[in-house]
């Protein structure tokens, strides 16, 4: 984690402490935006945030957080006066994130991240982040502007933070994939709003994934049934009798376990239906 890295190698330097705070803010955003309450991802992030705060000796002091947020806000306004045409919001506590428009406070995370020390893993991400955010949420933008917005929005920044940091938090590839899907969907929502998107690809649709998965399971079931029958036959031929009946694999056949056969008379049902 870059914030730990900074705290360990650079002591109590105020800049590094501030950067740690900014990373925490970014992760808090991630927590509120991505992790639903009571989810394991949320739990991991919360644990991680607690650990970071303990390391910094800052026990989630709301006053200090507001102060930091306000300072970030001022700096963001100064940085963006000549760059951002969008509306500037009043200072507010961190975490109140709009769904599409990236407020100044959140965009400031980009500025903050670019100031990290050179040996931090975040640097690679910060270097690739454009220094001049140009996000506009009006519907009369060109496709090029939308593309730029996708590159500079907080969703993109968070995705960069998350993909590295969450691996270190113990999240596994499938969970990271879920986050990626969420982030892509968030981006897609912008395109959808501008009527540049007709539909989401199948790879982002849970229903499509389930359908493909069930088809693959059917293929697997066919293979397993065939191989097991062949195995039983070859053993019977070789030794005169089966050594032992093999169990059926759980993952392939488990959906069909426990389903009781229902006997019914179709005529009776038709009669009842009238």
């Amino acid at each position: 984690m870059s914030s730990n890295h900074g705290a360990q190698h650079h002591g109590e330097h105020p800049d590094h402490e501030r950067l740690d705070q900014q990373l925490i803010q970014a992760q808090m955003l991630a927590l509120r935006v991505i992790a639903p309450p009571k989810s394991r991802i949320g739990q991991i992030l919360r644990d991680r945030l607690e650990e970071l705060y303990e390391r910094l000796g800052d026990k989630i002091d709301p006053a200090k957080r507001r102060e930091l947020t306000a300072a970030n806000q001022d700096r963001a306004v100064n940085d963006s006066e000549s760059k951002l045409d969008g509306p500037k919001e009043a200072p507010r506590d961190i975490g109140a994130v709009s769904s599409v428009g990236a407020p100044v406070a959140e965009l400031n995370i980009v500025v903050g991240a670019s100031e990290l020390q050179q040996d931090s893993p975040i640097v690679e991400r910060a270097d690739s982040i454009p220094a001049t955010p140009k996000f506009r949420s009006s519907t009369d933008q060109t496709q090029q502007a939308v593309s730029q917005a996708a590159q500079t929005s907080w969703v993109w920044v968070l995705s960069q933070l998350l993909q590295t940091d969450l691996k270190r938090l113990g999240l596994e590839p499938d969970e990271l994939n879920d986050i990626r899907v969420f982030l892509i969907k968030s981006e897609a929502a912008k395109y959808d709003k501008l009527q540049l998107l007709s539909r989401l690809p199948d790879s982002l649709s849970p229903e499509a994934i389930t359908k493909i998965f069930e088809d693959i399971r059917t293929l697997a079931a066919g293979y397993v049934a065939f191989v097991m029958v062949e195995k039983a036959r070859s053993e019977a031929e070789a030794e005169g009798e089966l050594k032992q009946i093999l169990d059926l694999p759980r993952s392939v056949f488990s959906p069909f376990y426990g389903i009781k056969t229902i006997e019914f008379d179709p005529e009776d049902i038709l009669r009842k239906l009238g």
Partner: protein
Amino acid sequence: MFPVKNRYDEVFEIEIDGWCFGLTNYPGEISAAVVHRVIRELASSFQAAIEHNVVFNVLEIAAKFSEASRHLIHEQEIASAIVAQLPNPSTLLEEQMCVLGLVIDQVEQAYPGSLDSFYRRWQIGVKAA
């Protein structure tokens, strides 16, 4: 080494081959999400394998799945995903914990840090419980 119960090693191998067959022969396009879904579905099988004292080779399975998914996902990522599906040691008997240790050790040798990741998840699981 503990004796394998009920020839489960054979069942397990057929099962893995079956899923790989499904992935390989699926006529349409598959995505990373589908592969992860398959691996998630195998959680009960990994548990069953460990309960039957089968020391399966995670790296070999990861390589098979990577190939079956047309190298859409790197072997290391699949290996991590498999480790994530392994059962919590606190739910296992002592003998099964040894088997689990042998399984994870192979991954740890190839990709250092896997054990840490597993341990962290296990701790989180305990906390959540």
